[in-house]
């Protein structure tokens, strides 16, 4: 492997960021777009080259794909603990390089059309490059602290891009919310790192993940409340992952993050950054699996399954198409977490892990495509709301077909990409736990309904009179759609299982026919329901929502989770603690200081009065003092 080429993959976007950031006002949009696209193009070429080198040239070493590491010391903490900066090449990091570079390249190309004429064009591209750099750094991380560093950096890029339209109050609020909610989750991540670092004496993935190593064979150096401290560490780290990957109940920032420009939603909030949490669990998978017989992994599975269902239900009721897609993302991320949570370790038992990564890969393609199509639609009708859309297939054929392919893919209809990965997930879950499988298959049905609900709503549905007749987007925007549509249709055929498995040996994958039939039948059922309800404008929808009553209202209001958060932050943290601290400081702490100061002044005024300057007063004091002393003296003398 040629490390100096691999290191260029993140460094090129970093250079682009610095150049565009520093020359922000001096270069025109044409130049900055060109610099941005050519930079990421180079990184993409290098990523594919790396993948070829790794899987093709290096290949398996004694039966398993090797983990290749190259790093330098960045900072020393103690004699054993330090932060390294470097690259770690193994099957999942190579896969992530492909995902991040491909989607980022498509989004860069698309943005040249989408952001045309925007005054912050250069700023947009520089932030996009900052994000791409950080994401590459994250997937290549060799140790917990490096991943944390880039984790924070993707977070801040996300903040800057959500708040891209910074004079818009809702965008500012959404950016702030995204940063603070994920920061809260990162607090868990950080404490988890500190705990694990303290008890194992290393942050290095190689040492932490070694199944035969000292750490995993003695996973309980100490225990706390009945669980190993390492389990606590892993749970805390998962909180960080759940924050980034929008797992319940830390998901509330993701729908609001849709305030950012749509290409950003495609890249960051659908395809790459939000899968960082899944990637994190996968990165530490041997630890999750072996420590305390996978106790923490059970939590991952249940949180994932619940989030998948929870989000799918909300997605059914939203009217903003980007928000539907956001909840859909949350739901699919739940699938990935669920699959990781039920996975075994050796050989084909690692099906869950493999299918999770597979789904991450296919989802990145079709979800990015869905968002870019949505962007194309929004570009045409200048609204995010379903009510402003209808019959668009007549005006936007390329967008329509691309969206349809992506919708079929996410619904799990063969032979599109989502079918293959979702099927593997369901098989893995079924082998592990039938209850979770029930949730999984239910979510599969709901997925088909909500995605075809918006598909029909946008491209079929009511005949809408448009003020300006909508038209297809320019080729800079449709080109990425076509590329991603081709990928969404075909990447399912990649024999993923021979490349990726927890023990890195790979195994023979196969399709479980009965399981596949059930899954496809459910998906088709969902599609049928959506067809009946939404293909033409119909009364049935409103009758149905009336019938559901409270259930519908709750789902529509996102189960009031936001309101709950608002109550806690506004009333308890802000009005209670923060205002309390401010008041306490001004009145009690400072009051005490002022009291000391003032009483000194008052006292001095009193004493000052004695120095009147009149001789009679001094004489009086002198005489009475002498008399007092004399009395005292006599008293002491006689007793």
């Amino acid at each position: 492997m040629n490390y100096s080429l691999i290191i260029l993959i993140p460094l090129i976007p970093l250079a682009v960021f610095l150049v565009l950031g520093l020359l922000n006002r001096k270069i025109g949009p044409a130049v900055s777009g060109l610099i941005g696209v050519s930079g990421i193009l180079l990184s993409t070429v290098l990523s594919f080259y790396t993948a070829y080198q790794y899987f093709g040239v290096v290949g398996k070493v004694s039966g398993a794909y090797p983990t290749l590491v190259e790093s330098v010391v960045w900072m020393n903490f103690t004699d054993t603990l330090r932060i390294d900066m470097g690259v770690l090449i193994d099957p999942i990091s190579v896969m992530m390089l492909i995902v991040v570079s491909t989607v980022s390249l498509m989004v860069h190309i698309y943005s040249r059309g989408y952001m045309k004429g925007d005054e912050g064009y250069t700023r947009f591209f520089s932030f996009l490059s900052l994000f791409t750099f950080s994401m590459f750094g994250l997937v290549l991380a060799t140790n917990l602290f490096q991943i944390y560093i880039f984790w924070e950096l993707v977070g801040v890029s996300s903040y800057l891009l959500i708040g891209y339209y910074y004079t818009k109050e809702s965008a500012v609020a959404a950016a702030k919310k995204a940063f603070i909610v994920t920061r809260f989750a990162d607090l868990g991540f950080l404490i988890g790192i500190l705990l694990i670092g303290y008890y194992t004496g290393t942050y290095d993935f190689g040492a932490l993940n070694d199944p035969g190593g000292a750490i995993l064979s003695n996973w309980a150096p100490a225990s706390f409340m009945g669980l190993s401290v390492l389990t606590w560490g892993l749970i805390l780290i998962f909180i960080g992952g759940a924050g980034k990957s929008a797992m319940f109940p830390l998901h509330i920032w993701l729908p609001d993050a849709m305030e950012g420009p749509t290409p950003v939603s495609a890249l960051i909030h659908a395809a790459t950054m939000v899968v960082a949490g899944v990637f994190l669990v996968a990165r530490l998978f041997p630890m999750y699996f072996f420590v305390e017989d996978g106790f923490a992994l059970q939590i991952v599975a249940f949180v994932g399954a619940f989030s998948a269902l929870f989000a799918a239900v909300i997605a059914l009721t939203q009217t903003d198409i980007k928000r539907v897609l956001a909840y859909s993302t949350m739901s699919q991320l739940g699938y990935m977490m669920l699959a990781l949570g039920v996975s075994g370790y050796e050989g084909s038992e690692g099906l869950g892990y493999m299918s999770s990564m597979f789904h991450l890969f296919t989802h990145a393609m079709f979800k990015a495509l869905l968002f870019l199509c949505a962007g194309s639609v929004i570009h045409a009708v200048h609204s995010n709301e379903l009510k402003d859309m209808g019959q668009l297939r007549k005006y936007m054929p390329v967008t329509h077909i691309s969206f349809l392919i992506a919708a079929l893919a996410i619904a799990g209809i063969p032979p599109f990409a989502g079918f293959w990965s979702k099927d593997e997930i369901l098989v893995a879950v079924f082998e592990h736990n039938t209850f979770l499988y029930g949730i999984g298959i239910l979510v599969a049905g709901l997925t088909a309904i909500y995605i075809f609900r918006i598909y029909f709503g946008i491209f079929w549905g009511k005949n809408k009179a448009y003020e300006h007749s909508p038209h297809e987007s320019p080729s800079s925007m449709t080109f990425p759609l076509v590329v991603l549509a081709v990928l969404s249709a075909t990447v399912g055929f990649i024999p993923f299982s021979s490349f990726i498995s927890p023990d890195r040996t790979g195994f023979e994958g196969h399709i479980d026919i009965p399981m596949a039939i059930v899954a496809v039948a459910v998906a088709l059922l969902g599609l049928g329901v959506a067809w009946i309800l939404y293909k033409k404008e119909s009364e049935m929808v409103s009758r149905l929502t009336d019938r559901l009553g409270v259930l519908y209202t709750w789902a529509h209001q996102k189960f009031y989770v936001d309101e709950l958060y608002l109550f806690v932050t506004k009333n308890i943290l802000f009005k209670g603690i923060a205002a309390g601290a401010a008041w306490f400081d001004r009145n009690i702490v400072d009051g005490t200081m002022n009291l000391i100061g003032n009483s000194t002044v008052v006292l001095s005024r009193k004493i000052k009065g004695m120095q009147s300057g009149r001789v009679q007063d001094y004489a009086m004091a002198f005489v009475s003092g002498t008399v007092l002393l004399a009395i005292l003296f006599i008293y002491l003398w006689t007793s």
Partner: protein
Amino acid sequence: MDILSLFIVFPLLTVLVLLGAKSLKQARLIALAGTIVQVGMSVNLLFAYLRERSVNDEIMLFTRDLVWFKDFNIHYSIGVDGISVALLILTSLVVLAGVFISWKMEELPREFFISLIVLSTGVYGFFISLDLFLMFVFFEIAVIPMFLLIGIWGSGPREYAAMKLTLMLMGASAILLVGILGIYFNSGADGGPLTFNILEIAKVQIPVEAQKLFFPLTFIGFAVIGALFPFHTWSPDGHASAPTAVSMLHAGVLMKLGGYGVFRVAMYLMPEGTLHWSWFFIVLAAFGVIYGAFAAIRQTDLKYINAYSSVSHLGLVLFALLMLNKTAWNGAIIQSLSHGFMTALFFALIGMIYERTHTRDVTRLGGLLKVIPFISATYVIGGLASLGLPGFSGFVAEMNIFVGAFQHPEISYRIASIFAVSAIVVTAVYILRVVGMMLMGPLKENSLTPMERATWYEKAGIFLMLLPIIGIGVAPLWLSEMILQSIQPFIQGVL
């Protein structure tokens, strides 16, 4: 003239030249030239130090010792290690930036720059002193000009603020003096002569009972200027009234004397006292970290926000020092530097914003990124640095502190650490609140009039602060190794 005494003599020479200045132009040129030379001197000292360090493993380098007052064994005794060198660089850079920021100081410019430079002399002297008495004298030299600077050039209730600040710091000095004298009178415990020399006293075992008595006095005496809760209230009022450059210097440099003194004097000379009292002060410091951050959330005056933010960030310094291991100490020193640059940057930016909008009330500002993009973008970067984003110095400092704090074997210390770590969330809240209200969002009344873009001298001041923040944040290794190396003898002394 030795390389260190120059740090005291040269500023005083600058002051003498300044006395002859006739106008603002002359005064600021002399001050600029003088402070640029100071930066040159401190950078030169850094290289000289690194060179000397590779061949010399004494605790203190470039030492010099002259008898000052024989009867009490008071010496003019100076010397530096990596920690003091780093702090000297910080001081010289902040003073230079302060001169840039005061480029348009119309009111009594000569006297203003003289006070500024006298103050910096006190700080330099403090950082190079090895004699407790000398150190105390320099401490006072640094504090007194503050009264004039706020009282004469300040704004708002400046007399009140100046008085409050000076009285609280003087009160602390009085306590500190008792502590120092306590150390002095016990320095002969091994039968030797009484001495003020830090290195000499460190070799002596001060009686444990005396340590238990004088440690808290010395600690509090220093910690008041380090804004330890609940002795921090001079800071918000003082900063709000102080002119920009004074706030920069005060928060950026002067407040660092606290942590430095605690480390160099209280903890180094009284290890038993430290162990005995550490839990008590850890509770205060950890509480201050969270408390300052929460109090900052509710403020609307930019200077108050920054002042409470300092209470939180500097609480972390004292917290880390009390964790008694080299990782946390390293973090404490880097946090001192990092906070120095960040807070000076913030005060500079607040001054610039105030000059243009005539308000420091965040609720009355909005959309400044559109109007003054350079200043606003720098504010965002400073904010991100302040909330501990990787790539900036704050992250390096905080991670050293947190990892170090977690190395403490006692579980209760780790619980206190978790408490302190959670400040990273609260900090994000108050920083992003200001960024969201003031820099982003729709334009408000105060932002509507066209404003002057950042001038060259303002940019110069900004870059002087920003570059070290990024430099330490991106490549922390050399700095942290230099500090770790200097911490080594202290670790052996205390533990």
